[in-house]
């Protein structure tokens, strides 16, 4: 896929627009993919005329007739169908209405899609878009972060974009990969996160990004938590602490080298994730750095996750269930004291 359409949104130059949201970037990436690759098609509940529960496919059915299809409420078959199309040369993008419903497609994802290339030598290029993560009032079944589950299984690439540019470029790159990709979009960022335009440079999948340089401690995070971490770092900067913030971008593969290099500079590590505390991304990050960067650490590494309960519905509870800028800040302060 070339970069011809860079910066074009809805056919207009970014100059014509005030800004582009994270959600629009996802829509635009799908638009571009549909335009440039006839093998791409979209499948999901309510994604055609309606444009999807979050409008991530708005207008695409009209622009690409017959290539954006409403599916029945059959997540298992949706994924099985995508696998069949993928191994026959298509590049399906499947939208789960909410990441949480991918639990129904779980078997087809981990056992069918993820094992296919290794078992048969035939690639299975598909993208599963998971509207992920907590938003206030969404409750236990419309708020989950499932990246840690999918990253556990061999054969999947698991992406967790945190910026408008990454949402765009990583989705486009994901579509070109010859492997099944779990694309975890964060719903909290859909409308809130805006950029002036789509960046022209991109970082390839598999590379983490240092979002903010620092020398007192490293915070490793991804997706919506990146923005909480950046806010915490801002706050700490007032007191003279320079916190380095690493955005993982992809949790599988996980760019250990970039984290190690950062910890080599700062000597301190906090891993922050929004998913459940047992296992998952923060465990993987902390254990890798403990193994490979033990002597770089000046203090015990730390983790911050959401609480070990289902995700609460009421905003009062939800607000303290997941990590926030405030809890990240306080965890960093403790880390700096050690």
């Amino acid at each position, binding site marked *: 896929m070339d970069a011809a359409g860079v910066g074009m949104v809805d056919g207009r130059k970014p100059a014509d627009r005030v800004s582009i949201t994270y959600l629009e970037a996802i829509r635009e990436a799908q638009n571009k993919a549909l335009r440039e690759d006839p093998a791409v098609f979209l499948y999901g*509940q309510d994604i055609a005329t309606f444009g999807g529960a979050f409008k991530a496919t708005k207008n695409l059915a009209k622009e690409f007739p017959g290539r954006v299809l409403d599916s029945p409420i059959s997540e298992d078959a949706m994924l099985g169908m995508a696998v069949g199309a993928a191994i026959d040369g298509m590049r399906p993008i499947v939208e789960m209405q909410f990441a949480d419903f991918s639990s129904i497609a779980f078997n087809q994802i981990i056992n069918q899609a993820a094992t296919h290339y290794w078992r048969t030598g035939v690639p299975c290029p598909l993208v599963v878009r998971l509207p992920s993560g907590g938003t206030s009032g969404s409750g236990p079944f*419309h708020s989950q972060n499932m990246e840690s589950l999918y990253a556990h299984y061999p054969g999947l690439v698991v992406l967790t974009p945190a910026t408008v540019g990454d949402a765009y470029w990583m989705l486009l790159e994901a579509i070109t990969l010859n492997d099944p990709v779990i694309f975890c979009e964060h719903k909290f960022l859909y409308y809130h996160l805006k950029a002036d335009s789509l960046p022209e440079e991109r970082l390839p999948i598999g590379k983490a990004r240092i979002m903010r340089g620092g020398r007192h401690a490293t915070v490793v995070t991804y997706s919506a938590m990146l923005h909480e971490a950046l806010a915490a770092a801002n706050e700490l900067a007032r007191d003279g602490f320079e916190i380095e913030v690493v955005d993982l971008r992809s949790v599988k593969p996980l760019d250990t080298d970039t984290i190690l290099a950062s910890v080599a500079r700062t000597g301190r590590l906090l891993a922050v994730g929004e998913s459940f*505390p047992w296992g998952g991304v923060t465990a993987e990050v902390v254990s890798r750095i403990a193994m490979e960067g033990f002597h770089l650490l000046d203090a015990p590494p730390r983790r*911050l996750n959401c609480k070990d309960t289902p995700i609460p519905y009421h905003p*009062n509870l939800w607000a303290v269930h997941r990590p926030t800028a405030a809890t990240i800040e306080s965890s960093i302060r403790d880390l700096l004291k050690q």
Partner: protein
Amino acid sequence: MIQSASIEGLLPTGVTAERFAEGFRWMLLSRTVEDKIAALYHAGKIVGGVYLGRGQEAFSAALGMALQQGRDVFAPLIRDQAGRMAFGDTVLSTLRTYLGSVLGPMRGRDGNIHRGEPRKGMPAMISHLGAMVSVVCGVLMSRRFKGETGVVGAASIGEGGTSTGAWHEAMNMAAVERLPLVVAVANNQFAYSTPSTRQFACDDLVERARGYGAQGISIDGTDLAQCIATFDAAVSRARAGGGPQMVVGRLLRLCGHGAHDDASYVPVELRELAENRDCLKAARATMLTNGWASPHELELMEAEAYEQVQQAVAQAQREPRPDPARETWMPLASEWLMEGNLQTA
């Protein structure tokens, strides 16, 4: 052991005036509650999403009325405000949940249609469509193990939900175990925005009953008398050992999928048609025509329902919200097995 399906069009109703009036009251109360919730939603007073049962009150109320709380089990779904209340859920429990009172049955941990009271025979739905039907099967198995007889379990599903594997597995399991299960399929022609043509390809979902070895009945789900007669009969058959019953109601959702949705994807013709198929209007007309209530009595009933709802709103709004500091964050009943919170480790 196997019952073949009978697909019937019109049933002789034999529904008494009292029973019809009772159904009408539940419908009216449900509509009143939901109108209020929708208004509160648009005023920004509701925590989370709002999903209404507008247009499905007759079908839902009739199911709830056919069951007996304390004896039966009922797993309602998205559009079952009427049926929930007919089964025993209250206006106050509803509003507590929507308004985020910690005194609601889910204590702020879950909301809206996900509320339930398993100890009173009403499991709390998870969002994943189809998943509650096998849970009802499990309660019925439990009752059978305990030697309790005459228990009926009911579960609601939309036509969209019948596309889930979960629904299929549960229907089949119920038939194999010949459980006293009544499944109410509300075919309101849309699943969110998706029309039935993209959801299934048989003429009437009732055609699936036979393949499970269940008894199937298809009715006009907006006709209260027919709904009452049908569910009463289906529940009786199940109670008497007749095995699973599948009742399909032809309906139209008279609102968006949620309060956030203007349903602009519903074709105009259908929307116009829709208003004429408002089951509440129809039931009201029946009440009047048959002289089961005077215009004045109906107005009193409406005012009463309104008053009841207003009081519940006022009370729920005064009640405390969940306090994170008092929340135990305890997902296990075996408290001693909880580890210290990892976050601050």
